[in-house]
């Protein structure tokens, strides 16, 4: 007996049923920003590079210094990049052609549709407001609806797989490589510094859910904390007040362009003539990576129908074949 064309077609049908056609992947759309989301607005035209935010972040989050020895002696807390002990950093970027440079603040972007949350196996990285876990109680669902959009980390459910590092386009989550009991380290908007006495339920006071130390300490008000919608209004106000000063686009939002990867809750303003790519921010498509990846992955499953149907069909065929074979043996 040889493999006939029919057999190959049958084989192709099984392979096709399991893999299906990715072009039909329209199940998942990029999420819209939460109306009550909180975030930060960084204005690169205001930052003077004092790094007060960097020190304040370390103190507020109880992070050890990133010791660097200077050539002429002395030891400094001088991290080169975000790392296992640094959640916030100021970098200077120079324009290749003009030589003009601008300071840039890096930390978690608290994306509108975060890749890290999409990939995290048990929701150790979790976006408040995007219920993945607590959907089983009414209180849980209510809390999710009133979410803040902060991407929080739950060490109790993190297996340390580091898939978040593969997924994050901003290279934000960092891993403690030299710890036998390591953590994923990233900015959680200082939600541990929130003021529980303030009113979130009715007034949506942003300080009731978080209070980033970097924003509190910034002497130039280059970075401010607030509701994302308020920050967007503030950014628009600044641009319309002084058009010559700013790049018309606000990174992570629809102002003057398209929200990168579905948008972020940490928004960036750049000086006129300086692109965001020059500031180290990636150019991303409008669709979030999470929507693309989940859409393609989920489409063939048809909400679980495909595997069940495939299992049923296979069990039936194999059972029937075994019966036939046994009958054949009896005849002999």
């Amino acid at each position, binding site marked *: 007996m040889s493999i006939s064309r029919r057999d190959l077609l049958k084989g192709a049908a099984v392979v096709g049923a399991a893999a299906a056609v990715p072009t039909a992947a329209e199940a998942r759309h990029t999420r819209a920003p939460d109306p009550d989301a909180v975030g930060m607005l960084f204005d690169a035209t205001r930052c003077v590079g004092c790094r007060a935010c960097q020190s304040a972040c370390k103190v507020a989050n109880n992070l050890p210094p990133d010791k660097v020895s200077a050539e002429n002696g002395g030891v400094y807390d001088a991290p080169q990049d975000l790392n296992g002990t640094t959640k916030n950093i100021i970098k200077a970027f120079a324009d290749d052609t003009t030589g003009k440079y601008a300071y840039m603040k890096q930390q978690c972007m608290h994306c509108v549709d975060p890749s890290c949350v999409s990939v995290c196996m048990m*929701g150790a990285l979790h976006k408040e407001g995007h219920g993945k876990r607590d959907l089983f109680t009414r209180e849980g669902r209510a809390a999710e609806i009133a979410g803040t959009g902060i991407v929080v980390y739950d060490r109790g459910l993190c297996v340390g797989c580091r898939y978040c590092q593969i997924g994050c386009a901003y290279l934000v989550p960092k891993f403690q490589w030299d710890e036998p009991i390591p953590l994923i380290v990233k900015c959680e908007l200082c939600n541990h510094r929130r003021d529980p006495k303030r009113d979130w339920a009715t007034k949506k006071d942003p300080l009731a859910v978080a209070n980033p130390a970097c924003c509190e300490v910034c002497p130039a008000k280059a970075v401010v904390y607030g509701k994302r919608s308020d920050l967007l209004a503030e950014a628009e106000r600044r641009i319309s007040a002084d058009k010559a000063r700013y790049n018309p686009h606000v990174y992570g939002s629809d102002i003057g362009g398209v929200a990168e990867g579905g948008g972020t809750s940490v928004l960036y303003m750049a000086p006129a003539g300086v692109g965001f790519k020059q500031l180290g921010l990636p150019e991303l498509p409008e669709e979030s990576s999470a929507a693309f990846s989940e859409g393609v992955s989920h489409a063939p499953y048809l909400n679980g129908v495909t595997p069940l149907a495939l*299992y049923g069909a296979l069990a039936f*065929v194999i059972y029937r074949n075994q019966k036939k074979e046994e009958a054949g043996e009896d005849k002999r």
Partner: protein
Amino acid sequence: MSAHDTPKAIGGKLLAPPMNLLLAIFGVAVVVMAYRFAVGIGPVSMMTDGFTWGIWEPVNVVVFTGIGAGAFSVGLLTYAFNKGEYHGLVRPAVLTGAIAYTLGASSIIIALGRFWNAYWLPWIPYWNLGSALLEVAVCVLAYVIVLWIEVIPATLDGAAESRDPKWAAFGQKWRPRMKKAMPFIIALAIVLPAMHQSSLGGLMLIAGPKIHPLWHNALLPTLFLISCLSMGYGSVVVLVNVLEMSWGAKLDQQLFAKLSKVNAGLLFLYTVLRVGEIVVKGKLHFLGANFPTVWFFLEMALFLVPAFMFLSPKVAADRGRLFAAATLAIAAGAFYRVDTYLTFYRPSGWTPLGTPYDAGWNYFPSIGETVVTIGMAAVGVAVFVLVSRLFPVVVVADRAHSNPGGGKVQAAAGR
């Protein structure tokens, strides 16, 4: 006929020099692993925040399970398409699969920073169904269990043939019951790998621009599924050839030639989809005088050369050539997988000219990482040898085959 050849326990000394060597290699790996658990992953590896998975995920999980997919691909042919002539290949393929998948799953424990939290994985309310890795983790764990259940008939046969009457009775009693349950287990053993092998490709969808456009596409799940079937058929041919050389296992060249025609079809399908996507999505401009382009063509050649070899009657008739072609088919899948996960992964992505943007990280596997990977492979071979010596897994050729001590060992197994 070939469909009903009975596998036999190989017997022989358990601790021969090759086995000692395998165990010694594994021993070194165990030392490295112990050190990793004491001090963290950083000191034993070259992994960084940029190249966070190193070689452990791409090789130990993605390639090992690809090789172990022989159980899936042969099972698909034997049971779903009812090609009884492949029956003799099932047991070695299933044992290889069980071992490869177990190694893949246990290697992950070493790579996980906070492995103890994996304890929560079976707790469904915590599942994030959007995560491809969750699908892989849960599905692979389930499949490891299913694979070892599939090994049970071999051990029951071993028990049934035991000289100890108690074991013989046990084997004879449970053998028919197991047989009745098998269709429902085998069906699971086809659905589960179809799911997680495609998810292994789906895992890298989210990396987007970090993977070179010639490797990143929406067909990743489909291509990984096809490549695992192809690797599976290749690994069965290689495995049985090796078994023939070492233990005189039965080898049906005609059967392999036929099996390899199926493999050729898969390799062509893969190539058409892969190249088709690049043409249709207008990615041809990424081809140029650069490293990714050269590597892309080498990879395509690695898929096409065995495909054409499998179709050639000369190769089909020649054991050595078919073996070589099957090895190339495995290499093709393995390279595709490692290239997607590692070789053409850069944390800051790629310029249109095919050079990576510098993000300040470089990666080449450390000695420690390599030792763990090789040690895992070594212990896999060791377990295969051990189980085949003790239990009827391998179909031995009809010609007289002396294996001094075989009876003794079998009796020992049945004790």
